[in-house]
């Protein structure tokens, strides 16, 4: 394993360990996504629930807003106790901090979706393989872009406001690709679109994280 990979593993392991001990982020995400699905179930007229697009939209909205909740907390420890300074002083590549955070966010999202997708199937309709593939690809995009923006927002006093303002516009392609892959007869091009989004934004986030954490 390269030194870079070892740094990423050590940092991601730390994030998972902190979450295992505090249990603050994943349970909150689970509660939120289940609540959102239940509320949508009762809020929408029964006639709308027969529409594939409307139903797929509910799943993607639930995932996106739940992800936002997780992202808001992703740099919590670093932000509250100034820990980003200690990490930035270490001789590791700064992008390793971003990649580790993106990996831990991705883990939290996958755990949330392990509950949310069966719950969605229970309340609405079964989920296709294409939708599951789209969810995994979307998670990569959410985690990579979200971790970068979360670090940007962490430096601001108005972080709770700033993160959604920065993240939601950039997440529109994820919704477009995700809903498209969920309802289209040929979801391949939407999955390709999500893959392209992931690749572009992962490279951009990887390259720019250094400038986000240094003055």
């Amino acid at each position: 394993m390269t030194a870079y990979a070892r740094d990423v593993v050590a940092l991601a392991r730390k994030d998972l360990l902190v979450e295992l001990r505090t249990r603050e982020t994943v349970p909150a995400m689970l509660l939120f996504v289940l609540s959102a699905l239940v509320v949508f179930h009762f809020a929408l007229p029964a006639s709308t629930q027969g529409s594939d697009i409307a139903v797929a939209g509910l799943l993607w909205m639930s995932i996106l807003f739940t992800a936002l909740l997780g992202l808001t907390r992703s740099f919590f420890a670093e932000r509250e106790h100034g820990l980003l300074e200690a990490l930035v002083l270490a001789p590791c590549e700064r992008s390793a901090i971003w990649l580790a955070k993106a990996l831990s966010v991705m883990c939290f999202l996958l755990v949330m979706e392990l509950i949310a997708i069966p719950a969605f199937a229970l309340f609405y309709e079964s989920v296709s393989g294409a939708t599951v593939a789209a969810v995994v690809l979307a998670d990569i995009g959410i985690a990579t872009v979200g971790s970068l923006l979360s670090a940007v927002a962490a430096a601001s006093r108005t972080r709770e406001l700033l993160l959604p303002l920065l993240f939601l516009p950039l997440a529109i392609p994820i919704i477009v690709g995700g809903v498209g892959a969920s309802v289209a007869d040929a979801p391949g091009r939407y999955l390709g679109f999500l893959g392209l989004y992931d690749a572009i934004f992962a490279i951009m986030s990887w390259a720019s994280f250094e400038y986000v954490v240094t003055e």
Partner: protein
Amino acid sequence: MIRARGLAKRYGEKEVLRGLDLDVPIGGFLLVTGKNGSGKSTLLRLLAGLLAPSEGELSVDVPRGEIGYVGHEPLVYRELTAVENLELYGRLYRISERKERIGMLLERYGLWDARHQRVSTYSRGMQQRLALCRALLHDPALILLDEPFSALDGEGVQLLDRELSEIARVRTLAVASHQPERIEALATVRLALS
């Protein structure tokens, strides 16, 4: 090792440092004093590379991984134990004999018995001791300590006195302190900020 010319730092409209000239040779001991808000912490953060100067030149001839920094916060994860925190930093600093080094520091700073306790259960003084362990873990060439005596009890203060005397002989140090009398004799460069 440290050279500053006309160094200035502003936060928005507020000017914290202005026109500062400074030379600290390798092995020197810089003692920074001054009242609250005079820019002591800002200067140490500039030296650590955590801030960029607003004006002037600053050169610190030490690679990033060779700096040990203690700030106002202990800079450790509260939900991890002392050993887990030092293990993490030890990996990031690529310390080969981590376990031995961590064990030696924890023992020296009186944290050995509490090494498997979460830092959230530590007193402020214990957290400060752990912060010192973290900063010294990789045996840095330049050590920056911002109010290192804060929160330490009598025993901790005496321990740090001894440590600083030892470290000052072999490393370059910059210390910002409200209690300069404790370490004044060790200082080779004194800077009073107003």
